[in-house]
């Protein structure tokens, strides 16, 4: 029964997704629709976590914007994500890097 749902989800899945995990620094290229116009916005930061499976998989990216921490959760297979570029691979021992939020 689950197989049939998987089959539908397979269709919505993206073909090429780079291999990345929490701790990596990624640049997410987002398609932003402004009425007629379409432009690309880049959100660059550290991946805090990935969660979920199938088409429902999401990932959370944290960046510092003018000294303020900003976090965004993206659906991994969203058609609005044009590209995910891995900029740096991190070296972490956690799946969810909540400790990055703590200021020292």
């Amino acid at each position, binding site marked *: *029964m*689950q197989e*049939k*749902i998987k*089959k*539908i*989800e397979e269709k*919505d899945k993206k073909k090429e997704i780079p291999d990345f995990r929490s701790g990596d620094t990624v640049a997410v290229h987002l*398609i932003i*629709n402004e009425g007629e116009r379409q432009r690309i916005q880049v959100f660059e930061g550290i991946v805090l976590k990935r969660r979920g499976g*199938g*088409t*429902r998989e999401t990932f959370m990216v944290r960046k510092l914007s003018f000294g303020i921490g900003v976090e965004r959760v993206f*659906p991994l*297979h*969203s*058609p*609005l994500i044009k590209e995910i570029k891995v900029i740096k691979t991190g070296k972490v021992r956690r799946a969810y890097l909540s400790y990055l939020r703590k200021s020292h």
Partner: protein
Amino acid sequence: MIKAILGKKLGMSQIFREGEVIPVTVIETGPCVVVQKKTQDKDGYSAIQIGFDSVNPSRVNQCLRGHFQKHNVVPKRYLREIRVDDSQKFSSGAKIKVDIFKPGELVKVTGVSKGKGFTGVVKRWGFKGGPASHGAGGWRRRPGSIGASSDPSRVFKGKKMPGRMGNKRVTVLNLRVAEVNAQENLLLVRGAVPGSMGGLLYVESEEG
């Protein structure tokens, strides 16, 4: 053609539409088969009986097996009747498939909700219960007063009290069809639908 079909709830998922995530319920629908035609003259009302989900003929008891044989249909697990204006327009053995629905159409889905067992008044009727703090103890999830005193000396009928919840026939109206997959006999409906996975559902168009 009638715009109603029987199906089985497979579970929920999500799809992307113009960058938006849409929650959908996947329903395996049909193909259903018209088994019997009930007519005004013979039965006093006009309806068609449709069957869904083929089963091994040896699994069906003799009376049902005879019924299916008479109408020349492979035995089905579920039989349901649908009232129609003129059942003569249908022929037994005719298939009803998902493609009677189109994406964007509104449907209503009927099923049997998940049984919750014997539940209290907070879960069943949304009572507020008592305060969680400020020195209050022993009155967290209770129903409170159930009526006045010697007048009327009884509890009014229909008073909301604890009891069995769920496991009832529930219809959800105005669900939008997100996708129709005629090859796999799958219907994707936006939103949630009553019942557990594998439960029988009755999907009907909202038009007419």
